[in-house]
């Protein structure tokens, strides 16, 4: 079975862990060997939160420099920060809505010009998908579904052996009943309207 190393990155509170967990769950239900790694503890307090989903029999829980097959970033600056983990052949999916770190307000560093760097990504990596996942999540009924929008986009690319139907089933079984509809809609919007 082909292996896939998928790196999720975002900011604490964006639901990266839930996204990787849902993908891991869907993969397991589909009989695909899977490992998911998560960041817990101190790193979660407003910091960068990374998780990985390793498909196809890989045993390692983490991904080295240049070895991610797919990067899914919940925030554009974090996509830029994680580029070293990608190779020229990698696929990059990123939300385009910035969350400006407080260190920018303190004047310690500038928030980079993301229009420029998104172009850079498109010109230098095999496949790049940049979308306003916040807007799609809002359209689906909850701003908290950014993670599921991005899962929809990830699945739409056809690079991993998890289908939209499998993920819908996983959402139905693992998300609180009152959020199921919004999440299914978010998945659909991410799948259909990613524009890539």
């Amino acid at each position, binding site marked *: 079975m082909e292996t896939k190393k998928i790196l999720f990155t975002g900011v604490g509170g964006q639901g990266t862990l839930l996204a990787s967990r849902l993908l891991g769950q869907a993969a397991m239900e589909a009989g695909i060997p899977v490992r998911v*790694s998560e960041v817990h503890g101190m790193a979660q307090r407003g910091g960068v939160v990374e998780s990985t989903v390793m498909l196809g029999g890989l045993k390692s829980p983490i991904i080295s420099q240049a070895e991610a097959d797919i990067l899914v970033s919940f925030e554009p600056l974090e996509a830029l920060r994680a580029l070293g983990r990608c190779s020229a052949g990698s696929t990059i999916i990123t939300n385009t809505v910035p969350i400006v770190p407080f260190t920018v307000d303190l004047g310690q560093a500038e928030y980079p010009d993301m229009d420029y760097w998104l172009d850079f990504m498109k010109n230098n990596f095999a496949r790049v998908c940049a979308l306003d996942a916040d807007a799609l999540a809002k359209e689906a009924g909850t701003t908290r579904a950014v993670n599921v929008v991005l899962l929809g986009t990830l699945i739409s690319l056809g690079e991993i052996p998890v289908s939209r139907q499998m993920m819908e089933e996983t959402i139905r079984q693992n998300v609180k009943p009152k959020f199921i509809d919004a999440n299914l809609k978010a998945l659909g919007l991410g799948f259909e309207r990613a524009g890539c």
Partner: protein
Amino acid sequence: MHPLLSEDAGKNMLLLGNEAIVRGALEAGCAVAAAYPGTPSSEIGNNLFFISQEKDSPIYFEFSTNEKVAMEVAAAAAAAGVRSLTCMKHVGMNVASDVLMTLAYVGVKGGMVIITADDPSMHSSQNEQDNRCYARFANLPMLEPTSPAEARDMTVAAFELSEALELPVMVRTTTRTSHVRGPVELKTLPEEVKRKGAFEKDPRRWVPVPAVARIRHKVLLEQIEKAKALSEASSFNILSGNGPLGIVASGVSACYVEDALMELGCADKVSFLRLGFPYPFPRKKIGAFLKDVEKVLVVEELEPFLEEEINLIARDLGIDVQVMGKATGHFSRMYEFDPFMVKRAIADAAGLELERPKRPDLSGIPTLPLRPPVLCKGCPHRETYNAVRDALKELDLEEKAVYPTDIGCYTLGLLPPIQMADYLLCMGSSVGTSAGFSISTDHKIISFIGDSTFFHSGISSLANAFHNRHEFCLVILDNSTTAMTGHQPNPGIEIRPPGYDKPRIPIEDVVRGLGITDIHKVNPYKKKDARSVFKDVLSRGGLSVVIAEAPCILYYRKFGGKK
């Protein structure tokens, strides 16, 4: 019902390593568990806590005030023949080590499992000590899982081993085995769990006065000899492949080796010994392995625990084999590994070409703004820090101030703009080190400790401070929970998880009981009042305690109003 109590044997669940350990304990019929939370072990206690709150729960669990107490609770249960478990982060083992070293002498009757969760690279810790050394130090058997499925299996096996040897058994994880999820196929839960045992008195065993301890040390060494035979025969020590290059690894390092061998396409040309039951060392198995290879690469994070033993075995058996590892510069004694690091070392040792995927030139990326962890917006600790600083400013004492701190969210007071954390060693160290600074300097000493940390190891140091007339101001940041590790209860909490009906110990009563009279309570959100209390206290000498009381805002959102 808690998902880990599922009766659905045969079902696959995507469990965290820590959850798999809990499931293993339940499948093994563990009836008593106790712990103090600490990353990366916290989810073990959290899940056990919620399971123990269930109606007809098969297990008793408590958050003990510290790791030493937790280990004592579990030890006594096991002495009475009841299966028990305690878990802690690596540095928690230091607190419990006084128990551990002698518990090994007296041993257990019911199976007892000690989980130590180490943190290479210090994701959430103050050091990266390698607790495998404790297994050797205390002479206790140790298992090391590589995946959640193995974590469950090894937890179950550890209970059996423990009963066979009448010794507690350690299971050592690291962040990357505690916090990884993988499928675990559930096995059946026992129909009945032995909840009550009976303690059989035997002072010649259980009371290690010198005459008894001398006998028990001998018994311990005999038992660890028996454990050797078990590790030699253990199915957790797995040999695969066959070739002149040997690799020995355990824990997550073994995962990196497996992936590297697959990606390099040389799995069948390399002899790979994976040690899931590394201590006591299966010396015969390792010796036979060394005889069959020309050179051996030892892949292990942190200390050269296996490497040094392999060198000894080779020397003792007169085997001419090149041992590569930390001593030879192939690996570092610092930080966690990553897959490429291991792949490169293996390719090097095997003389294989290693192609790295091409990466675009990223040298143009500017310095990116960081996202260091911060105190939450609205966190009461911020307000307390501000009130103390303002009071010091008004007294013109800010320049003289030194702030010993402690372990919790408030350690983040280290960072700008607060910068009021100057010295830290371990849980509770704020109080003892304040005493040291107060006698050896002319600084104004103001130290900070959280409510849970105070109960963990602040009380005895505060008694010491009062008795020995040390002069400082201790600020107890009482946010009514153990916030950093995920909101576990402690004896002082006023806001409680639903159903939590244990008696409360007000911190103020404890402090007063120690004889301290200069004691004040402030609400940090009432800025003016708080500042004036601090100003008053800090203008004097002597020992004072200010309790800054306001619940953690995240915790309050969860359980506030549900007293």
